[in-house]
Structure formats: C-alpha cells, structure tokens
C-alpha cells in the first residue's frame, strides 16, 4: 500500500520537475543556426547575426578539395595516399615554366631552382568530389601544400559528372602536351644528334682502326 501512494507521489513530483525544465528551456536562447542567412564560415562572422552558443567553422575545416597547380609537382603522393582513389593524376615530362594557366597568365613556378619540378607537369588532375570522404590524408601527405581542403561544403550539382572536379583545363593540357611533344622532339633530336655523333665517332674509330 505504501508503494501505491509512493508511486502516485513520485509520478507527480518527477513530472513537475521535468515540466519545470522544459518550461525553462523556452526562455533560454535558441541554438538553431538559420544557415543561409547566418554566415557560418568563421567564429567572427557567425557572431554577427547569431545569438546561440555554437561555433562557426574552424580554419582547418575539411571541405571540398582545392588544388593550387602552381605548387603542384605532379608527384602523385596524394593519389597514393587517398584510400578510395578519388584523385586521378596524369603527368608528362614538361617544362612547367613555359606553360600558361587557363586565363592566359603564366603559371609561376616558385620552385624553379628544383630541376625535378621543371621536368614534370600534370595534364590531368581530377578529384571525384562525390567519392571523396574528406579524410584529409592527401592534404597531410602533400609535400608542397598544393592540395588542401577549403571551407566550401555546398556541393549540390545537377549530375554526378559535375562533381568530378577537373583542375587542369583542356587548354593547359593541350599546351602542356604540345610542349611535352616539343621537349620530346628536342630530346629525340638531341638523342638523334648524339647517336649520329656517336656513330660518326664509331665510324671514325673504325676508320682509324682500319
């Protein structure tokens, strides 16, 4: 019988307690972030219009990947680091300093002193943003910080095809390929000349022997 009345008492007091809390919550700030109106890109901008206590995006936010081709050395480390193979890089032997970007401005190579950089350039740098899982491993692996996460996260596109980010435009690719073929031709010419020379020398030697 005691338990019976205890049940009734507990039922009322605990419900009373709970109701006081849910009522109190009505008078405390709301945590909802009204996203498109409130700029959430950093702690300072979110504070402008938002009264709650959530933070804005941090500086190291891992959003959509971006590549700075001027820094890229086409070393393919990021491609190897990516666990799901969403990065595809093709490269060819090319003199990077002579290339120009899509808009015509020359691609500045800040690492001209490094011979290795001169010799290779990307002709294809595709990141499949639909596949990417934003783990940040490519960013950490990149020796020149060319690939990095931006704080962009809106990626609604009409088709999956559009989600494949192509960082090397066809123009650049064409130029690079052209340049590469030039280099190749030069190299071939050089090689041919060298071979001819060698042959000549050989012939000379032969002649001398004879």
């Amino acid at each position: 019988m005691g338990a019976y009345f205890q049940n009734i008492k507990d039922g009322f007091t605990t419900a009373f307690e709970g109701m006081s809390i849910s009522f109190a919550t009505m008078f405390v700030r709301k945590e909802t972030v009204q996203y498109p109106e409130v700029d959430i890109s950093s702690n300072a901008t979110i504070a402008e219009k938002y009264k709650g206590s959530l933070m804005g995006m941090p500086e190291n936010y891992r959003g959509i990947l971006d590549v700075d081709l001027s820094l890229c050395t086409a070393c393919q480390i990021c491609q190897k680091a990516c666990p799901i193979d969403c990065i595809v890089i093709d490269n060819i032997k090319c003199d990077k300093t002579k290339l120009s970007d899509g808009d015509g401005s020359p691609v500045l190579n800040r690492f001209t002193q490094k011979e290795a950089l001169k010799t290779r350039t990307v002709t294809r740098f595709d990141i499949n943003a639909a596949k990417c899982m934003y783990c940040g491993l490519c960013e950490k692996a990149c020796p020149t910080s060319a690939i990095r996460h931006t704080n962009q996260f809106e990626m609604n596109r009409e088709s999956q095809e559009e989600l494949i980010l192509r960082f090397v435009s066809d123009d650049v690719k064409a130029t690079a390929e052209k340049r590469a073929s030039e280099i190749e031709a030069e190299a071939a010419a050089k090689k041919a000349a060298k071979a001819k020379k060698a042959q000549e020398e050989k012939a000379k030697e032969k002649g001398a022997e004879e």
Partner: protein
Amino acid sequence: MDATLISIGLDPLTAKITSMVIISVIVLLAFVTIGGILTLVERRISGFMQSRLGPNRVGPQGALQWVADGVKLILKEDLIPEGADRKLFRIAPYFCLVGIFGTMVVFPWGKGVIVADLNVGLFYFISITALVVFGVLMAGWSSNNKWSLLGGMRAAAQIVSYEIPVGMSLLVPILISGTLSMGGIMASQGWLPWEWMVFKSPFAVLSFIIFFIGSLAEANRTPFDLPEAESELVSGYCTEYSGFRYAVFFLSEWANLFVLGGLTTSVFLGGGNLPGALEGFTILSVLVYLAKVAVVIFVVIWLRWTLPRFRIDQLMSLSWKYLLPGAFIAFLGQAAYMLLTQHTPIVQSIIAVLMFLVFVFVLIRFGLKVRVSINEQRIPVNSPASNVS
C-alpha cells in the same frame, strides 16, 4: 438565417436545410482553421522547449506553415495499400472527424454562446467522441498492416477503458452543479478563481486531476499516445494513410486537443464567466473563454514534450488501479462533503479559498524551480572569454 433565406424565395424546408448546411460549413471551416493553427502552435512550442525555433519560414514567424502543410497533403497521392479493405479504409478518417466535430453542437464558446444548450450536453459530449475510437479501429483494421492493427486495438482498449474514469470523475461537477447541460454547469461557477469548479471542494480537485489525465488518454496525447507510438508502432493506425485522408486524421487529432481544452475549461475552470459589472459583453466572455482554453492547450502540449510514454500494461493499470478508485473516492467523497457542508456555505468558501492559495503556493514553487533551471542553462559555453589559450 432561415428568415433571410425564406425572404429570398425558398420554401421553409429548403431554407432550413440550406441554413443547416451553411452553418455546418462555417463550423467545419472554423474547426479546420483551429486544428491547423494548433498544429503550428504545437510545433513552435515544441521547438522552443527543445532550444529550436520550429517552423518559421512560411509567412511571418511561420504563421502560414499550416496552410502550406495542408496544401501539400491535399496535393499528395492518395495511396490505398494492396489488400486493404478499400471501402472501410476510405471511410475511416471521416469517423474521427465526425466524432470531434459533433461536439461542436454543445460546445460553449462563452457565456450564452452555444449552438444547442442540450439538457444532456455533457453526456452527449462524452458519447459522441466514441465515434473516434470507431474510426481508429476501422483504420487500423482496414489498412491490412499489422502495425496498424496493433495501433487500432491499442486505441480501442485505451479509449474504452479511460471512458470510465473520465465519466466517473465528471459526476463530481454534475453533483455540484446539479445539471448535465454545459450552460448550466458554466453558470454554476463564478469568475473568481476560487469560484471555479476545480476549487469548490478537495474532491473536485481530485476529480479534475483524474478527468484531465483520462481525457489526455482519450485524446491520444503523450504520455498516452500508444495508438500511434512512432517508436513502437511506426505510426499506429495511420501508418498506411497518406495525402488528404492523413490530413483529416491529423486535423481531427488537433481539433480534439481544442475540444479537450474547451471541455476542461467550461466544466472545471469557470468557462467564460465574467464579473457582474461586465455581464453581457459576449465578445469579452468568448475571449476569456478562449484564453483559458489556450492555457489548457499549452499545458497539454507542454506535457507532451516533457513526459515519456507509458507501456500498454502500465496504461491499463493506471486506469483501473489508480484513476478508477480515485474517481469513486471523489464521487462518494463529494457526496459526503456536500451533505456535511450544505448548511454552511461559508465553510465551503473558506475551503475553496484555501485550496486556491495552495495552488498559488505550488505555482510559486514551480516558478522558483524554473528560475533555477534557467540559470543552469545559462552557464556559458563557447563564450568570448574562453578564446584565450
């Protein structure tokens, strides 16, 4: 209205029927509006209780959200599941609707504002809502879905067993006022809080609590929302419904909330009574009444967003082991109380005032608790002061 219609050349019978139809349509539209607005109110309040904003995009502060929802539901495809009993499936939502709208006949909007002050008004009120359980059972069975069936059965068991304590607890106000008509019960109370039915005697308080809990269960509100417990039965009896029929179910559910508030207000909370000096201002009376209804509705919504749900056996034991004996005690106690104090009205008034003071004391205790909770939630997190390393 009849006279106007007759004057434009209709014969009396047609005129009468036309006016009936017109009034029905008006009441229906009014109820649709009330039900719609209540869905919005509920969502906003629940948002506030959960540190959210709730729907606030359609119209100023989301005021037109319910219209948007309604339009969306009406435009949706009306699916009838394979193997369903099509006739019963189609007709079921309207039972719920009729059950709730039927109460409009005796719904007292204020002092003297009542369509038909039936002599058995209160009784009619309880019995016409039995149509709801019929609709729910029908929906549950005809959907050809086992979850719906379980929901329908739960609803039937629940509503049938809670009708008893609710009916019993309403006997106390009937005993006090000596009438079954809604207008009569309202007239037997005064405008001052201690003249309300609920404070008239300790047993009236008990019966009020039992009535309130029981009618929550009859309206399928949390903590008694077992028929449509979303975490157990997916959506109970309306799992298979979509589009317009679903809207009808929900409309009747929220209209039921309003009816619950109205019944509680007019029977226990003094209805639309005004002080003697203001007697005759019907609009004011309606406003007072609606304000009280709003408070009751708020409490019901508040309970819903605070309490967890009962289990089916606990629900039954609450009804049969707690509420029903309580209702009997209230009824018998009230009879004894009336016998003892019938010649000393002054004692009755003193007890009423004392009980009101107890209520005020509880309110103050509650306010203090709320203040503590507010302060607890205001403890800063991510404050500018914490930016230093």
